[in-house]
């Protein structure tokens, strides 16, 4: 009786999954086997392995790596500091707050800040270095992406640091470990779960960033996300767009599987 009831409750969820997860995935897979003229072919898959798309994939992956790396570099110490502060809830709120603002708005704000006559360049000019091209570079792309992703990295790491039993830290000190050794041998390994989920939350969306590539990187950075957008909206080659999406999904699955198997442990 109760089992039947539970199944009834599952129906809306299953419907949702079916309509918005399984069906779109199926459609992506379906479209990926049709060329631009609507003929069935595996040509799209062959085309993906040509230098132009491979380069795009490599660029996507390396930028996602860079973004994840720098986000982690900033977020871990920030999360650590956060656990030691007095008004943690307030600080946490301040970190979460920017995520409530639309990404587009934040991107435009950065255009203003990083532009030729923006605040950053004004400061550079005043300090005597002179105005630089900041916007529309790989640097600005990574910089803004890191900014956007930091809260998603801080939260899981903060949670795992909060859960960490302080007596482990005491025990490490007691056994003669310095602060650094305690961090490296005890605190970091025990908060790895948080680091992993943080890296997933950053790396996977970073793979398919496309709006920022145009607004902040001025199309100087071409990721797979950009390519998908171009194919669907500009060249109307839905088949190729879908094929790239299939590879992107495979990459995401791969990341999740690797993360689950302690990929960060060796890293």
């Amino acid at each position, binding site marked *: 009786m109760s089992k039947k009831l539970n199944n009834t409750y599952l129906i809306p969820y299953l419907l949702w999954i079916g309509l918005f997860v399984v069906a779109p995935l199926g459609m992506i897979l379906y479209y990926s086997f049709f060329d631009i003229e609507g003929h069935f072919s595996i040509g799209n898959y062959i085309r993906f392995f040509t230098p132009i798309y491979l380069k795009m994939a490599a660029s996507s992956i390396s930028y996602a790596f860079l973004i994840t790396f720098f986000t982690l570099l900033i977020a871990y110490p920030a999360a650590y500091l956060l656990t030691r502060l007095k008004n943690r809830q307030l600080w946490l709120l301040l970190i979460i707050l920017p995520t409530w603002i639309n990404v587009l708005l934040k991107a435009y704000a950065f255009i203003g800040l990083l532009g030729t006559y923006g605040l950053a360049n004004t400061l550079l000019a005043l300090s005597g270095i002179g105005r630089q091209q900041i916007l529309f570079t790989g640097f600005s792309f990574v910089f803004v992406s890191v900014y956007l992703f930091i809260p998603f990295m801080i939260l899981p790491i903060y949670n795992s640091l909060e859960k960490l*039993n302080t*007596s482990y830290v005491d*025990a490490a000190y007691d*056994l*003669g470990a310095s602060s650094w050794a305690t961090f490296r041998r005890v605190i970091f390994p025990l908060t790895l779960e948080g680091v992993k989920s943080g890296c997933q939350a950053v790396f996977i969306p970073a793979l398919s960033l496309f709006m920022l590539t145009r607004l902040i990187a001025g199309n100087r950075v071409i990721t797979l996300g950009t390519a998908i957008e171009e194919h669907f909206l500009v060249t109307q080659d839905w088949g190729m767009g879908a094929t790239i999406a299939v590879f992107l999904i495979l990459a995401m699955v791969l990341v999740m599987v690797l993360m689950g198997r302690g990929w960060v442990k060796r890293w």
Partner: protein
Amino acid sequence: MAENTIIHFNHVSKQFDGETILRDISFEIERGKFYTLLGPSGCGKTTILRLIAGFLEPSGGTIEFDGHSVNKLPPNKRQVNTVFQDYALFPHLNVFENVAFGLRINKLPNKEIATRVKEALHFVNLDGYENREIADLSGGQKQRVAIARAIVNRPQVLLLDEPLSALDLKLRTAMQSELRQLQRRLGITFIFVTHDQEEALAMSDEIFVLNKGKIEQSGSPRSIYDEPINRFVADFIGESNIIPGNMVRDRVVSFAGKVFDCVDQGFDENEAVEIVIRPEDLELKQRGEGLLQVRVESQLFRGVHYEIIGKDKDGNAWMIHSTKSTKLGEEIGLFFEPEAIHVMRHGESEEDFDRRLESYEGVCHV
């Protein structure tokens, strides 16, 4: 200061957020002995342990280790190791790596690490457990790993923070004698924190009884049990009958409306005192016999003995431990030897107490 002293607390005090945890504590810890800090929760015993380990800094006074002040020395530079209450074994490392942790920090060669870990595990009867995961161990095994992890570093002093409190009674009793044996074999100082008086009595060379941030009494288990300094110690350690009385003169005390011979002296004439008689020192007699007459109010079977509560004519309640049973409402006689009576002076300091005892017993109470 004795030559054998390893830790010396010199007027140490500790405050947290304006609240006093320890007030002006002084004591010495000697090499190779088993010490117990005993007291109710909140008495400051764990604070003392954390001060020795270096997790806390005293607010006043100095802590000396081997004759040098260690007030500012961080825990990772001290020659003490701790067995934590929750063991604090690293869950991401197996038994071997947990025990090897301190040795790896000290960059010992792998070969030596392997031998010493093996040795330490052998010491705590965990041979062959090297590759076990912490999560797969029982409470008693975790306990042993925690001890092995501490002693493998060959500390001069081992601190144990209520390490037995999470174990069931049977295992706890077994671990008590095991710990005692371990301390004898290692020959290092153990400082053991507990709120369990039986544990303290069973294991220690010396007990510090703490209450509200002060040492109430220190001494061997026997002397603390037989000659508690005040009502708190008498009550906290073992069961006691504490009855108001009057010191008639040396070796004569009156209570419960009668006058008795005792072995205590050094009081003022007719000084109001409290007397202690342990329930097991009271002997059941027929009605009309013995030194006191009481009426049985309640009786509990405790396994080893009956716990009988009787009231005398003055309304004093007497707890008696006896293997013989009585009937409720029955009048019984109680007998006790003069040595069973222990007389306590109100508000006597430990120094005065020790001096008074020495004056007539001619033996030093340590």
